[in-house]
């Protein structure tokens, strides 16, 4: 597309009307901010950050935490899929050895001995949540992660579980059942 460049009139070339226009706009904003308190923080939300926390929208991808099942048991079975899929290699899982404690719930053989997420590396992509077959890790609503040292930002299993909370019921078997049913009722009729 070719935009027609009209020749500027004498006044436009003098640049003064633009200055006057700029002065009008900036003065208006200055007046509204100083005398009416109409700042972005006051009009769009009800205050400023540390005092007024932001309403996190549904579906927001915040920090990934491990969740417990309804009995308070660890859902993670140490399959290490999230560790492999993690693009920045933020997740480090220490699987249980032959001698260590088995899972603290039924229906599971293992649980990780240690599960660490380095929050400084995490890019909040959500791949871990997507790949997890046990629905044990979810990206939650935490967006403000701060620490005084790098070591503080590596969250271990205990911390992740306590921050993650409970995810109502193990949905895995329900979802497996639905999948199985769908496969039995084959959608396309064969003649």
């Amino acid at each position: 597309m070719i935009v027609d460049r009209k020749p500027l009139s004498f006044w436009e070339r003098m640049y003064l009307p633009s200055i006057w226009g700029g002065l009008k706009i900036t003065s208006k904003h200055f007046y509204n901010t100083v005398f009416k308190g109409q700042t972005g923080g006051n009009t769009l939300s009800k205050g400023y950050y540390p005092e007024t926390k932001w309403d996190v929208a549904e579906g927001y991808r915040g920090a990934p935490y491990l969740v417990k099942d309804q009995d308070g048991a660890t859902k993670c079975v140490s399959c290490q899929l999230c560790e492999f899929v993690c693009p920045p290699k933020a997740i480090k899982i220490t699987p249980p050895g032959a001698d260590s404690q088995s899972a603290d719930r039924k229906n599971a053989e293992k649980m990780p001995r240690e599960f660490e997420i380095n929050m400084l590396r995490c890019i909040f992509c959500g791949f871990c949540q997507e790949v997890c077959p046990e629905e044990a890790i979810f990206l939650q609503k935490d967006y403000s992660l701060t620490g005084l040292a790098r070591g503080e930002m590596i969250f271990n299993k205990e911390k992740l579980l306590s921050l993650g909370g409970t995810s109502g019921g193990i949905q895995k078997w329900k979802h497996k059942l639905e999948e199985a049913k769908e496969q039995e009722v084959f959608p396309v009729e064969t003649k």
Partner: protein
Amino acid sequence: MDSLLQHWNSLAPLTQSVVFSTLKVLGVLFLALLPMVAYSVLAERKISAFIQDRQGPNRASLPLLGSIPILGPLLTKLGIWQPLADGVKSILKEDFTPSYVRKAYFWLAPAITLIPAFMTVGVIPFGSTLGSQKMVIADLNVGILYTFGIVSLGVYGIVLAGYASNSKYPFLGGIRSTAQMISYELAMGMSVIPVFMIIGKLNLSDIITHQAQHGWMALPFMATQQTFASYLLWPCMIVSFGIFLVSAFAETNRLPFDLPESETELVAGYNTEYSSMKFALFFMGEYASMITASCMMVVLFFGGWSLPFFGLDQPATSIIGGLAHIAIFVAKILFFMVVFIWVRWMLPRFRYDQLMDLGWRRFIPVALANILVTAVVMYFVR
């Protein structure tokens, strides 16, 4: 106290003047200029915030002063302590020197930017008299020539920074700044010639005294006795002042002429590779030269410390009068500082060819014509 005064009076006049000059230099530098630089940064941040519907710095607080009822929170909200926090931060930050820079020049450049900006203030009369002392550090009779000479040194710091950084964006910034500052120095120098033609002196104190008697250059009605001649010369002075003002923006690298820095094209221009206190020196240099430019405008066109009411157009005889003159001068400077800051958040940056076009093909011919017109008017009036 009496013995101290006696001891003082017994000193040789030369010793007295040396002591007074040292005190004036230190006082002006550390009690006036550096705090003004620090707080104009705050003003810049606050005004930009208000224009952009934000609040600006309103968190920094001091342990005891911050908890005074009403006053403490108010000062915190105004961001009064922010410059302190900024200063401490600048010193404590990592001072990173990239491996590829030319180290000696890299270290020299910030100092060369800052020092000329501070040196110019030496000849500015910031008040009439206080006691028996003239309120100017060096009462040179070539004041304005000194100022222009020193101001043009400022460009070396930026060019050197661009060269020393040894990378492309600073280099481009340095080149641009050379061309820009040299071009606008011409226009600036020529724009003030009519002022000296009218007054006939180069000493800045005499220029102020003349304006106090015959009306300010840019506002001839600000005088105790009006003269017809000053009204006839008013249009010439308006043109002079306009060119001087715009050139001052170009000389101090402020928007709409901040092409040496222009962050959208050159990352940060000549100070891309600088960090910590070295960057802070460039920053302070920019604000110090803004203050200098404001001083020059006040002295040349707006009557310096004088005000045509309440007998404030005569050099002060009492201490209170002297302080009042200093206050008037500072108030006038602050007005121009606000103009500098406000324009930055109001106008978009010029394109480089537009900048050069404005300097060489508009301002220099207009300034030359202005000299001629002033001369013709003066020929008929006097």
